[in-house]
């Protein structure tokens, strides 16, 4: 096999790459469905009906897309600067813990102020948690992939400690916090649904990240560090400071994913507050080509898969874990698709 560079493809093909990857992934999903003995037609129909078929289902898909957008943005922003943040899961949990804490003991202030406090706490907690691996990377040259991953487990057990200890609901033996105060909950914006303020915040975050990326000096520096840290340093950029700031923003975005899950969905802090949203963020960011708009689109796509898999499972008996299989496949397919835009691959026999 020979892999060689090809001439740059026109922009519209570049834009079509993720679309092609999504279609290829959907086709490949037929394999696990068939292995599980599911009827193909019924499976795909129930997948899309379950996610988009009714107003309620569509809005549920939006609900699920919010945390995925946040973690996707978190990963995308970090990866662009080559800060390998695989720790969105732990940062999400940090944000969820902080939001629960503020939400449970919400001060008697106007709702807008309380919500601002909740979001700020979640953002800062997630951001602070992400600056630890960034600090270790810049100061001690510790591999960021490994530390961000390990810190996920630290935060998970820390949450376990809190939920069996100081944050446990009095009188309960379950690992579950008291409910957050009414005043600290995101308002529902559309009747007969769970479409909440956090979804709008996720879209605002997309705009903010886009703005930071393309209209600010920091966004430019962050990308320069990602392309070539040495050249960036030579050009007068304080690389360490940029990595730290990138980590803070990335972790903060992941923290906001946790905020929404606590104050808009579950209203309690729970051990299973996140079904791996942080890890899904990696797939979402890659499929969105690390671009904020691409990220929100791919977050919506994966939300369709996750929500749709539930109804597919009910109707065809295919295990809901199909959603995880599809996520893994999507990442691999997207990687290959990206390669094909830059390189020609020729099979040759030596």
């Amino acid at each position, binding site marked *: *096999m020979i*892999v*060689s*560079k090809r001439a740059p493809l026109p922009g519209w093909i570049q834009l079509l790459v993720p679309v092609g990857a999504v279609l290829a992934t959907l086709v490949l999903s037929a394999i*696990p469905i068939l*292995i*599980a003995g599911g009827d193909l037609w019924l499976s795909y129909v129930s997948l899309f009906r379950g996610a988009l078929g009714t107003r309620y289902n569509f809005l549920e898909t939006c609900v699920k897309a919010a945390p995925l957008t946040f973690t996707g943005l978190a990963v995308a922003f970090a990866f662009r600067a080559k800060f*390998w943040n*695989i720790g969105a899961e732990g940062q999400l949990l940090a944000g969820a813990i902080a939001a629960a804490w503020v939400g449970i003991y919400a001060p008697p202030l106007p709702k807008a102020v309380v919500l601002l406090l909740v979001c700020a706490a979640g953002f800062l907690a997630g951001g602070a948690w992400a600056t630890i691996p960034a600090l*270790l990377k810049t100061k*001690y*040259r*510790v*591999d960021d*992939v*490994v*530390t961000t*991953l*390990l*810190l*996920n*487990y*630290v935060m998970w*057990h*820390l949450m*376990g*400690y809190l939920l*069996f*200890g100081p944050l446990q609901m009095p009188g309960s033996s379950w690992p579950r916090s008291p409910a957050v105060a009414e005043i600290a909950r995101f308002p529902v914006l559309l009747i007969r649904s769970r479409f909440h303020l956090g979804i709008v915040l996720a879209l605002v975050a997309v705009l903010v990240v886009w703005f930071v990326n393309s209209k600010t000096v920091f966004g430019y520096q962050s990308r320069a560090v990602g392309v070539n840290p040495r050249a960036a340093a030579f050009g007068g950029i304080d690389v360490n400071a940029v990595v730290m700031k990138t980590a803070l923003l990335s972790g903060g975005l992941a923290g906001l994913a946790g905020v929404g899950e606590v104050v808009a969905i579950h209203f309690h802090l729970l051990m299973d507050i996140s079904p791996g949203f942080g*890890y899904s963020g*990696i*797939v979402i960011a*890659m499929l969105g080509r690390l671009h904020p708009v691409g990220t929100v689109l791919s977050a919506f796509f994966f939300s369709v898969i996750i929500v749709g898999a539930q109804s597919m499972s009910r109707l065809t008996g295919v*295990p809901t*874990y*199909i*959603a*995880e*299989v*599809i*996520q*893994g*496949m999507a*990442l*691999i397919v997207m*990687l*290959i698709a990206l*390669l094909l835009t830059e*390189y020609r*691959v020729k099979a040759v026999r030596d």
Partner: protein
Amino acid sequence: MEQVMTTAFVTGLLAAMMRMATPIIFGTLGEILCERAGVLNLGIEGIMLMGAMTGFLTTLTTGSLWLGVAAAALVGVLLSLFMAFLAVYLGLSQHVSGLGITLFSTGLAMFIYRLAVGSPVNPPTVRPFTQTAIPFLSGIPILGTALFNQYVLVYIALLLVPLVWILLYRTSWGLAIRTVGENPFAADTVGIDVNLTRTLCLAAGGALMGVGGAFLTLAHQNMFLIDVVGGRGWIAVAMVIFGNWDPAKGMAGAMIFGFLDALQLRLQGLGFNIPFHLFLIIPYLMTVVALVGVSRRAAAPAGLLKPYRREEKG
């Protein structure tokens, strides 16, 4: 405190240390093979989970524990060949391909397990490996019981450490592997097939990772749980750095992790009035701290993370 200092406590602690360290030793050796050839294999966490699942289901259906181990090794090889296709032959980002393999394998493991077993109230169990005492040696006080009355897989892990070391440092294959990892262009010049060498290392490493996973479901425990690997693959990646890509030092790191893991279990059992979740944090936190200590002088293979394309020299 008297309870802590008894012979029985120390013996039990050391034996548990060995059990906890074994899957990490397998994973660390597997990862060292990959990285020495220049490929960071972040698929390890998913490969270990697939090994744990495949080994368990194979034993559950055939009743043979060793067939389970073999199946786990095989699935490790297959997933690693897939990794080789992505990261070696196509030259995709090793970070992202590895994470892709892990995410895909994790989903697949849960998917297949659910398909095979359904959702019964009580998860099925196998009759796991039992300890095999080594004559004479197991009679040594304390150390004998801890080291020489163990699962055969523990002995295999311990034997593999010097074997991998000899392979890497005392054979021409090892020289080829290390050259490919340090300077693939030089390796190519002297006629070593860089991509083939990397693929073989990934395959062998994957087999070890798979067996490490199977140890968890066939010896350490007797059932498959979704979080059975629980980050041990990532710990192994950390131990490779901690051990400076040396099998013996990597094993030492795995032992320290195993010791902390065993200690937290024992102290919990003794009813120390400290919440057990804080104990669970200790091994992970200590790993991070250890990395801080070694990373400044860590010397990763120079060719790590770089795909080899002959025409893109320097």
